[in-house]
């Protein structure tokens, strides 16, 4: 019952705008705290790797960037499904807020992977399963972004991007299992739900802090962007006009 009420309320941009204010403050502060802690821990306090020395510290940036880039895509796929099936307006707002973040995070994952690959594999780039499927992720994000820019009709734009976002989620398990299917240069998963990490706690703890920090940053960014977008789209409504009615004295 409570779930049904929540679902119904999600359809209201005004309710979303009011409730999300507290969330972005909490998520933003958590992101700032965890990312600061994680960077200092990972750069200066985690022990060097016995094989890679200090270059492995790139992991504390690379792994979170790649994980969150994929999760943001999954979130966008779910929003696409909601938009496609229930035509909920807020889902279209969510897709538009996920896209720029996903593009930057995937680019960051590829860039940090490249500068880690050079000292570790001896090459900036390798056509390996993980790198190629991550490149496909970047192209999916850019493709949907371009698609949305190209369609003028809002209804069609929403449905077309929702469809591509949904179909593209097939790439997420491909990225995940690529390291098991094609065992080339890229190492296997750092974290799994079922097994203990293959690294010592002094290494995986700061990594976990960075992963959580970047997840909070993503939640903060998506909600922040959604709030701006809701204000813009609802600019002709009474409730938005009332929010700024206090500005009248300015004239």
């Amino acid at each position, binding site marked *: 019952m409570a779930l049904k009420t929540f679902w119904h309320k999600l359809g209201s941009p005004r309710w979303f705008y009011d409730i999300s204010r507290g969330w972005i403050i909490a998520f933003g502060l958590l992101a700032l705290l965890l990312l600061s802690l994680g960077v200092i821990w990972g750069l200066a306090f985690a022990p060097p790797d016995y094989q890679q020395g200090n*270059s492995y510290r*790139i992991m504390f940036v690379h792994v979170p960037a790649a994980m969150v880039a994929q999760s943001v895509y999954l979130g966008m796929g779910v929003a696409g499904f909601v938009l496609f099936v229930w035509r909920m307006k807020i889902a279209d707002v969510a897709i538009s807020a996920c896209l720029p*973040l996903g593009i930057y995070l995937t680019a960051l994952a590829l860039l*940090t992977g490249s500068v880690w690959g050079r000292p570790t594999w001896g090459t900036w780039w390798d056509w390996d399963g993980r790198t190629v499927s991550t490149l496909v992720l970047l192209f999916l994000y850019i493709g949907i972004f371009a698609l949305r820019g190209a369609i003028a009709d809002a209804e069609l734009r929403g449905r077309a991007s929702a469809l591509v976002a949904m179909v593209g989620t097939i790439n997420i398990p491909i990225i995940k299992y690529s390291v098991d299917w094609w065992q080339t240069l890229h190492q296997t998963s750092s974290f799994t739900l079922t097994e203990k990490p293959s690294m010592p706690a002094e290494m995986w703890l700061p990594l976990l802090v960075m992963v959580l920090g970047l997840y909070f940053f993503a939640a903060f960014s998506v909600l*922040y962007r959604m709030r*701006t977008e809701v204000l813009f789209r609802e600019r002709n409504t009474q409730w938005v*006009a009332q929010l700024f009615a206090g500005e009248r004295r300015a*004239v």
Partner: protein
Amino acid sequence: MQFDSWNDFLAMGGHAQYVWVAYGSLAAFLLAYVGMLVRRRRAVIGELKWRAAADAHEEAK
């Protein structure tokens, strides 16, 4: 602390260029992205305030 001196920390055991490019790009991304979010919000709010003021002006006439 894993490093004996500030110079030692900056050198990253000979991998300075790779490590600092990675952390530098993370910092650049975070700052640029938050800047983008704030600029977009300010632009939208600026427009909304302008509209509200224009409406009030109309009514006052």
